[in-house]
């Protein structure tokens, strides 16, 4: 069982890592908790299903793996891009007017944006679970006692690729370097001639694209999605980011992976550990508990970043 839980945790962890990455990108620059990030993820999931259904209506059920892969690629790109655009709109409407306002205001705005997106999604897609069309073959890879389905394989392969790509992007491209500079010190970056507005928009775009891709992959993996997954997504993204070190991109990845593993093992072993007192229904609050514990005792996370104003 341990092997299987390990695999489960890794797949989950990759998703959390992607979420936390997108979240941390914005946080690193603006020091703003983008509450609506979870809802962007949810919309990515929803859009991917809608797009794929549209495509399938034209092409019919795919006959070969190649066609299925192609459809998936198109779907993922479409979902990612839509989320990217959504992220830009979010920045423009809800966050930019409150740039530099005292922290209370943008936070309230973020919450408002999140609620808005969630309820609009509910109105558009309904309250029921929506099925992700199954176009990948069932079955998967067997590693010892652990089985990993094809969607799971996809996640574990694609996420590191994306993260490496992001890393290169941040290191080599001008805008990537500008982002890192702005994250270090926004005002100085502005003095150095960096167009901080553009950088911020770019950060929102990239972060949201990541969320959209994560959303697509998750609904593929689970086979369905629903309009309220956004709330848990943001809590887990934030928990992962805090765990690894807020604002720190490597930390976000580490935090995400760790959180996925912790959750999976908790479900597996918690009832035994607590003599049946705490059962598997406490799974979701694990992220919450990790969050609270870390913020109280080690706000800088595992890899470091100041989280309290003053002790």
């Amino acid at each position, binding site marked *: 069982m341990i092997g299987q839980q390990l695999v489960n945790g890794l797949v989950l962890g990759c998703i959390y890592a992607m979420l936390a990455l997108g979240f941390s990108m914005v946080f690193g620059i603006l020091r703003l908790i983008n509450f609506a990030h979870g809802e962007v993820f949810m919309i990515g999931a929803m859009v991917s299903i809608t797009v794929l259904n549209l495509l399938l209506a034209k092409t019919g059920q795919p006959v070969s793996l190649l066609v299925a892969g192609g459809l998936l690629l198109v779907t993922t790109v479409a979902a990612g891009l839509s989320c990217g655009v959504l992220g830009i709109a979010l920045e423009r409407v809800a966050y930019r007017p409150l740039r530099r306002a005292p922290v209370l205001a943008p936070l309230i705005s973020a919450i408002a944006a*999140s609620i808005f997106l969630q309820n609009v999604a509910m109105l558009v897609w309904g309250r029921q679970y929506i099925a992700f069309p199954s176009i990948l073959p069932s079955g998967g890879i067997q590693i010892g006692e652990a089985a990993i389905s094809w969607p799971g394989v996809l996640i574990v392969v694609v996420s590191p690729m994306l993260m490496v790509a992001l890393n290169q992007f941040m290191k080599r491209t001008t805008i990537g370097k500008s982002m890192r500079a702005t994250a270090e010190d926004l005002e100085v970056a502005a003095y150095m001639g960096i167009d901080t507005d553009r950088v911020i928009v770019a950060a929102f775009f990239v972060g949201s694209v990541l969320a959209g891709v994560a959303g697509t992959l998750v609904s593929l993996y689970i086979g369905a999605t629903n309009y309220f997954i956004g709330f848990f997504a943001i*809590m887990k993204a934030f928990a992962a980011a805090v765990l690894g070190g807020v604002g720190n991109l490597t930390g976000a990845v580490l935090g995400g992976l760790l959180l996925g593993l912790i959750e999976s093992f908790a479900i597996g072993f918690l009832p035994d550990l607590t003599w049946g*007192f705490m059962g598997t229904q406490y799974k979701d609050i694990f992220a919450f508990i990790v*969050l609270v514990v870390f913020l109280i005792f080690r706000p800088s996370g595992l890899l470091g970043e100041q989280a309290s104003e003053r002790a």
Partner: protein
Amino acid sequence: MSEHSSAAGAPFGATRSPHGTRLAVPPNWRRAAATLAILGAPFLVGSLLGNYWVRVMDMAALYVILALGLNVVVGMAGLLDLGYVAFYAVGAYTMALLSSPQLGVHYSFWLLLPVAGVLAAIAGVALGYPVLRLRSDYLAMVTLAFGEIVRIFLNNLDTPINITNGPMGISGISPPYLLGYSLKRNYELFGVELTYTAIFWYLIVALGLATAFLLGRLRDSRIGWAWGAIREDELAARTSGIDIRRLKLYAFGTGAFFAGFAGCIFASFQGFVSPESFTLFESIAVLCMVVLGGIGSLPGVAVGAAVLTVLPESLRGLNDLQQALLGRQYVNGTDLRMVIYSVLLLLVIIFRPQGLLGSEQRRRELTAGRIDSRVGRAGR
């Protein structure tokens, strides 16, 4: 430092003060009119529109208490608590556990009112102690997490020993008794029917008045001014010798107290509690009331609570309207409620952060540093 800068033409002779619009001393006839309004409202509404609307009034008054409590935390001390509903739940479940068949004990409502408040306050201080040194947004997330944790625990504490009866909730909560009479029954007085919804109206309004009175005094006390100082500039406040930690704890505890207070009333009014009533949605709704009505302003917050409790009722009429005009119901009115709340919240926080009745001072506090020329006035 004049406390009352007069604002000519303001309604009811209102004056602006650093804490928000405060209404001036009305002459005696206004007081009499207000008292008459309170006494007569349930009968008027009840006979014209039905008991259902008196119930709506009761809930509105209850939310006023909740909003006043949250105002202490968010408005007076400037801390964003997104898990406020947890304290509401603590109060409600205190009443439910100590006055129902669940544990078999039946304590008096009047005894449990302060007890619920105190227990909630203890929870507030316990939560606040480790987390209040965090930055506002981290604090918001932690309180949010806490709110959810409490709800999940309430839903799951029925195994291995049944404390909260889990998702089924606790029913059969005893009503309040006054001089041997149950307050949750209908009575006949001089030929007029006194419904229990009317009785609860008087009860809740009385308690609400007491709350407002207490909080008004608190606001104008040293503690209140200290909160204002912390809100405006924490470093300067600390330098002046204010114990930030302790004062933030006071705010948290006081806010939690009133939430527990309201929760206790809610439990005995509804006679039934379940974890479903204490979701994040409630916390957000109360926050909306505070922000919309006017952060920091007591009358503002009360108005916000009243408006946001009663107005959604008209959303249901939206369905009938669609049916009549368009022949079909395209969108359910009540589903729009949160969409409208969120849009209102967004608009208010961007364009009028001090809400309906907040003060100019508040607006300045909430926009300090903003460099958006579209809004018109730059920060300080």
